[in-house]
């Protein structure tokens, strides 16, 4: 069952990663002219349209990981990593759990500053909040992936 939940957690994380990366690219590298290339089209999406999806995906991914999977990780996986002396991986995962919570707490502000119509006055705040969330999502995705590669559930 935990393996199924982990796969769903991973799929939600992939969707979240794509959405937040689209949005952060649209804010920090906006396309100035009609896009012809793949990268250009990637940057030229309307960032605001991703906001609600990002919030829902973030909350669902965090809830699934934190409530359904994390206790099993602590019981079954973490002791094995400690025995193997993989301290850097464990430290990266501890950072992941704290970064996730800090990101959750910024979601009310993130939603507020992305609310339509977008305020030009808060463009920098909006961009910084989006970059912060993007960093957290990328960190969490990569660390989760690495930990699963080291010792996935059921191994």
């Amino acid at each position, binding site marked *: 069952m935990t393996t199924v939940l982990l796969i769903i957690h991973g799929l939600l994380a992939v969707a979240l990663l794509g959405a937040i990366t689209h949005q952060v690219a649209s804010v920090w590298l906006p396309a100035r002219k009609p896009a012809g290339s793949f990268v250009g089209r990637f940057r030229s999406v309307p960032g605001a349209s991703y906001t609600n999806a990002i919030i829902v995906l973030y909350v669902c991914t965090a809830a699934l990981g934190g409530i359904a999977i994390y206790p099993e990780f602590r019981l079954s996986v973490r002791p094995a990593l400690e025995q193997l002396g993989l301290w850097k991986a*464990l430290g990266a995962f501890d950072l992941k*759990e*704290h970064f996730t919570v800090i990101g959750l*707490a*910024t979601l009310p502000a993130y939603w507020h500053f992305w609310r339509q119509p977008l305020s030009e006055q808060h463009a920098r705040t909006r961009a910084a909040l989006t970059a912060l969330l993007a960093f957290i999502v990328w960190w969490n995705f990569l660390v989760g992936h690495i930990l699963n590669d080291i010792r996935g559930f059921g191994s």
Partner: protein
Amino acid sequence: MTVPRSSYSVFAIAFAVTFAVVYSIAVWKNYALFTYHPATNEFGLGVEKPREGGLAMYWYGWMATAGIAASVASLAACYLPQRLTSRLWPGLSWAVPLAALVFFAWLLKGYFLR
């Protein structure tokens, strides 16, 4: 520049700031509101030692501590006079959480320096 802020705006900024600060302190000093014992699926009030040779999880308790404290503080901030809330810099909503990420990197540096 000072601009009038809606109550939600004040709440959202104050919540991001106070949660990041209180959560960081809660983790640092281990102020968990409750402890979860995953081996026996039991909860205990406050910080408890592991039961029956198992392990104790404080993460949920730290979140609860910070969530309650930040909710109360942010709701209280909504009732502050407009002349004070209009000076609230929106950038605090990302600057303080960013500082919290750096703080955790420092707090957990022992894992990376072994």
